[in-house]
């Protein structure tokens, strides 16, 4: 579904992505691992068109999308749950979700209502707080809102940037359960994470990004099982 080939991205004079090759097939959960400053967020931004790759190709469902403006790329069915949530603090929960459905303005009204129902079902706490301002929610609730907002667009590919960040462990488990549930209902997911064990526990495949390059690529099970990899790249033991 999504394919990055030899992608090079600069941030000002800095070459952040040196050569990234990665692929996400329909129906999968794939995770992209790496430490700080490895280029994970830049990869997300490159896919979304927020930054333009200096070289290489980004393809979505067979079409090239690198170079297209963000709002066009997003309309093809890609949604983002950004790092640190970044919900609209000055809007209510309901309005945030409505913004999520922005690309679906031409859709019949009934469908959007269905999407709201689906989000309420997934996150009953948000229903309770639907007229509260986003800025007043707790970290965990904001994460739910960010996910719900991304779902409102009925994406075919969901990008998630460090969903576990800043959350208590029990919340992290909840969030990843939800990610699995979303995937089971048909959405392909690419998760970028620092918390490798949790991400690998739900993914089918994993890539490890280091200094702007993919250094390892294997099935999640293999990655979790291989001690040397665990110690070197996943920061375990």
């Amino acid at each position, binding site marked *: 579904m999504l394919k990055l080939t030899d992608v090079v991205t600069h*941030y000002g004079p800095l070459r952040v992505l040196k050569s990234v090759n990665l692929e996400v097939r329909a129906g999968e959960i794939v995770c992209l691992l790496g430490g700080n*400053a490895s280029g994970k967020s830049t990869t997300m931004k490159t896919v979304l068109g*927020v930054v*333009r790759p200096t070289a290489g190709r980004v393809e979505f469902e067979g079409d090239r999308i690198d170079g297209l403006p*963000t709002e066009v790329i997003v309309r093809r069915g890609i949604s983002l749950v950004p*790092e640190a949530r970044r919900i609209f603090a000055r809007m209510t929960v309901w309005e945030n979700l409505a913004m999520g459905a922005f690309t679906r303005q031409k859709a019949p009204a009934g469908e959007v209502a269905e999407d709201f129902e689906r989000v309420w079902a997934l996150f009953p706490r948000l229903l309770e707080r639907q007229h509260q301002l986003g800025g007043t929610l707790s970290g965990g609730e904001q994460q739910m809102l960010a996910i719900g907002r991304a779902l409102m667009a009925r994406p075919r590919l969901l990008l998630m940037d460090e969903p576990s960040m800043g959350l208590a462990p029990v919340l992290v488990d909840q969030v990843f359960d939800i990610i699995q549930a979303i995937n089971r209902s048909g959405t392909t997911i690419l998760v970028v994470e620092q918390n490798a064990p949790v991400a690998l526990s739900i993914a089918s495949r994993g890539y490890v990004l280091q200094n702007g390059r993919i250094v390892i690529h294997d099935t999640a099970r293999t990655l979790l099982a291989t001690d040397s990899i665990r110690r070197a790249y996943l920061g375990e033991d």
Partner: protein
Amino acid sequence: MAEPGFPRWAAAVLGLVVLVAPLVAPNDYWIGVMARICLYATLALGLNIVVGFAGLLDLGYVAFFGIGSYLYTFLASAHFGLHLPFLVTLPIVIVLTACSGILIGAPTLRLAGDYLAIVTLGFGEITYLLLINLDRPVNITGGPSGIVGIDPPAVAGFALSRNIHYYYLFLAALALTLLASARLRHSRIGWAWQAIREDELAARAMGINTTVAKLQAFAIGASFAGIGGSFLASWQRSVFPENFLFTESINILAMVILGGMGNLLGVVAGAALLVSIPEVFRDLQRYRLLAFGLMLMVLMVFRPQGLLSSERRSQEEPEPEAGAEASSA
């Protein structure tokens, strides 16, 4: 005078040209234009300290120009009956105008960018309104009709009367202010200003007392305007509020920008251009401001670093296309 890339011999030639210029000028009118160039170049150098060195966007610089002019008038004309000699009035005006710089600069210390610009603009406007209205109940400023009968500069009994005299006086002052600016730039204050201009927070973290440095910028910049103001008053032999409108602030700012902010000779060249070009197109005088406005827009869009500057000063790290905060990679 270590201007980047400006060889000694070129400076010498320029100096020579400038010294003999009035002798080869077509007529007295053009000597007057040259004198005006020197006057405005001095003003532009003053603003350059505030805007170009310290990075403080001052849209009300004309206030200092006006204050300097009127102060000189109070001390050396029939208005209050004071006729202090030139060599006494000039220093007094410089000091007092510098003080006004501190007064106006003080409230702006916590502001930055657009807000600083607007507040200084406000002060410029207030100054103009005071100049035009303070003839009631007590006649201080002479109101809309200004004050006439100002003494010309006189040194050792010799009173300046012809344009050529003024030209050499203004030229000498310009040379001194150029020297002072160059010295300041490479002094401790100069480095402090540059640090503040680049990143005020970091400057403070380095231990620079930004409050003092900013006030110094305002004071010194204002003092140059005090010089310019004295010159204007004593040359024109009169002052009017209309000499100190907002458009004049923009005019002087344009000279600084045109020459490339911080670039000393560029600023002088900017002054030369902006004073002489309207003279060349005298017949099209009515279109002057129209062209000026257009020039500002075009300059900013196509060449914000100024015509004469070689550095790409305003090309800092480009933000990602949609322009929000940069998150870590």
